[in-house]
């Protein structure tokens, strides 16, 4: 199957295979999923590496993402300019990191960026409140949310500066063996 496709050159496909956790067949399948999102926008020939971005609104309507409360943050983290509009590289990168072969460190790094809503390289109290509100769909009262956030900071903040750094987050992830199976999107 690999030699008959005309979407990518052989070198491009090799490069994708070496840099992501997908095989050739899966990359082609992902490409056709990407193309289905915007058939008029995405050309069927990527040998010249066209600069095409699928807008965020179409990405967020994918069945794998449409009911995910963090879909906007996920798209923003993996897109090039942080606005949620994704090129094919971003798309492949996103599903490669969220696949089951990605190692824990890589997933923890991107999870940290996803939960850092204000992009200041720390998960502060405000970020935590956003996370908990999104998780519970706003059904917890404000003081319950702040109580939960305080307990999270108590448990995970190692250097007691009132927010979680990447190391704190990674330490906490190490203690949660379920992280690998929940931070996983099947495509």
């Amino acid at each position, binding site marked *: 199957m690999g030699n008959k496709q005309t979407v990518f050159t052989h*070198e491009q496909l090799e*490069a*994708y*295979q*070496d*840099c*992501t956790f997908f*095989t050739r067949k899966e990359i082609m399948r992902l490409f056709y999923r990407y193309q289905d999102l915007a058939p008029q926008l995405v050309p069927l020939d990527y040998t010249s590496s066209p600069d095409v971005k699928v807008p965020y609104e179409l990405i967020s309507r994918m069945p*794998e993402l*449409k*009911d*995910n*409360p*963090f879909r906007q943050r996920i798209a923003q983290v993996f897109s*090039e300019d942080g606005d949620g509009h994704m090129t094919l*590289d971003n798309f492949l990168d996103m599903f490669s990191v969220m696949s089951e072969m990605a190692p824990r*460190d*890589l997933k923890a790094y991107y999870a940290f*960026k996803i939960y850092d809503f*204000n*992009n*200041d*390289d720390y998960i*502060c*109290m*405000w970020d*935590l409140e956003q996370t*908990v509100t999104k*998780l519970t*769909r706003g*059904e*917890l009262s404000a003081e*319950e949310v702040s*109580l*939960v956030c305080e*307990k*999270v900071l108590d*448990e*995970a903040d*190692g*250097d*007691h*500066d*009132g*927010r979680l750094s*990447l190391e704190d987050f*990674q330490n*906490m*992830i*190490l*203690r*949660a*063996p*379920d*992280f690998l*199976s*929940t931070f*996983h*999107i*099947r495509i």
Partner: protein
Amino acid sequence: MAQPPALVLNVPETPEDQGSCDEGEMHRSFHQLLQEQSQCVAEEGLELQPRGPGARAPTASESDRQALLGPEGAVVHSTATLRILASMPSRTIGRSRGAIISQYYNRTVRLRRRGSRPQLSHPGRSARPSLRLYDLELDSAALQEEEKRVLLVKELQGLTVAQRDHMLRAMPLSLAEKRCLREETLTPREKRWGQRGRRGRLSCCSRLRYACVLAWRDLGLGLLPGLQALAPWRRALKRIGGRFGSSVLSYFLFLKTLLAFNALLLLPLLAFIVGVQAAFPPAGSGPVRAFTGLELLTGGGRFTDTVMYYGYYSNTTLNQPCAPPPDGGQCTPEGGGLPYNMPLAYLFTVGAAFFITCITLVYSMSRSFGESYRVGSTSGAHAITAFCSWDHKVTQKWASRLQHDKIRTHLKELLAEWQLRQGSRGVCGRLRRAALLALVWLLCLGITFGCTVAVYIFSELLVEQSPVSAEREEAQLALPLVVCLLNLGAPYLYRCLAALERHSSPVMEVCVAVCRNLILKMVILGILCYHWLGRRVGALKDQCWENFVGQELYRLMVMDFLFTLLDTFFGELVWRLISEKKLGRGKPEFDIARNVLELIYGQTLTWLGVLFAPLLPAMQIAKLLLLFYVKKMSLMANCQAPHRPWLACHMSTVFVSLLCFPSFLGAAIFLCYAVWQVKPSSVCGPFRTLDTMYEAGKVWVRRLEKAGPRVSWLPWVHRYLVENTFPIYLVSALLLAVIYFNIQVVKGQRKVICLLKDQISNEGEDKIFLINKLHSVYERKERGRVGGAQEAAMPLNLLTDDRDAW
């Protein structure tokens, strides 16, 4: 929080050092600054109080903590302090590609020096660069990045292809950058080979080597999608995971694991026992009986004298071209043909299959344990719920809503539990609770005992009533029926009793339920094993008792399957109809623990019966395949995901451990007892002339001793290592020593973790202290400067603002 601008840090005291990455310089400049200020402070008569151990008061740390909080934080630092903070190494994670590249450059260097694959489980250093590698000025930071990038590319070229790919994949860079790095890393040779066009100036050997490496890689990559396509049910598993989450998915993944184990068990049996015997059928078998439908249930009748059971297998050497002369001398082989010693093959194949299964089980159990156990993992429930509990696999709207509800409930429970712990229960309450728990456990154990006694009495009745097993095959179904009924009914009783004891944590509930069901099943199986090996062997003295045991196990398996189907039908479909129409509640929950225990029970039956019915794993595979589709259909139509959060990772470990310890261990003990202690029947089977099945091996060893000096090491090994008990004691003592050593290591690691946590906490406080001191120093300077400038004329104000570059 406003993004602090990442500006150049001008350290005015040493202007010529702009652009140097000398850590010492920076420390010296700050040291100078602080000295200056402490002189001012000393002049003003204030003194810095030393922070003693009591001085780490919560008020101090709280105010310090508040100094760094979000946009609504009380303290606003001066712009100078903010600029310094913005240039701190820890702030540049994610923004600085240079940091990531330099980190991966260091990793690659270490890897090349070590010359081994990187450990996936090793946490490694985070993306935080050390001060040495980080440059303070932005322009030369770009230069540094370029240098580092070139170095990284050079290092990557020094790795093997697999290591390079592994490094590239694990880097947290964007895909476009990874492709650029890879492009630069490809050696010209590889590029040429990639184009498959020209021939390079390579020697013949290295060209051949490259061709082999590339062909191997292509083969592996070509096989990989094939293997993945072979992996069945990818779409079905995705649908199940999408609708019900990881918890229910863990049941189906466990089913897949069991399929793999059975396939592993079946292959050597098919190749070395069943296939060979089917190719050389024994002479003088009885008349072929007619096929009635009952054989499918009872396993007897038409199936009795087939490869399915032990009794069919011959006890001679197959395919022997000559018959041994009557005086016992050697025979000269005439034609071709490999003689095949059937008894030996039977014994060794079953032993080897069990050994391989044991190794695979222990390996998968230890790997699963390694992934799920963490030192100090009991704390941190809130953090883990907040960050790790959302299952991104879930794709349906209603399933997603269910997840929201589940997480909300869990968070509320955690908060309630914490508040409850604040106000502890009185002694009376605790005593009452303990008494209730003891009562429920006693009742459950009583039910177990009752079931066991019932099975025992029933089996004794059967032995006394009909010692001849040939007639009345329908009556043979009675014992399996009773056992399955008890296995079905007792767990429901346990569930009713468990409603009395209200456990605080749902994990405890599941553990307790699993324990009780497991005890029941294992005790019943134990009674049945005693019944077979203890009583039936004696009762069926001149008949083929092994066939009988094999058929009993076949019947048990078939009955178990039928009852599972019935339970699925009544427990899920009918209960859903009742629950929705009459009771008005929603769909019933899918009881994961009970279903997994049923799978483990079925697998135990297979392992028990392999010695007496070598085709039992094939039946188990067929049963598991059917079960997958039946359970999937019933799940989609009738059930919903469990409400309580389910620690999928921990529970998978528990299930694999349960599969290993009571289940496989029990079957192995049964097998060893049957092989070593029980006299095989004298009318059928491959061991009919021997005292024990193990004697086949001893006979062969004795024959080897006579065969000559070339193979004399085998009898020696047998005499001194297998039959002697001293090596076993030695190996056990060594194993115990290794286990003790590992326990001590883990204890030491726990202590080190506590110490490191304290150290991090202290460093954090130091950092906050320094930042606040820095802020106050700059403020003082600002005030001093403003005070001085006020004396000058008004237009000069603009100049001072400009000069206030730090």
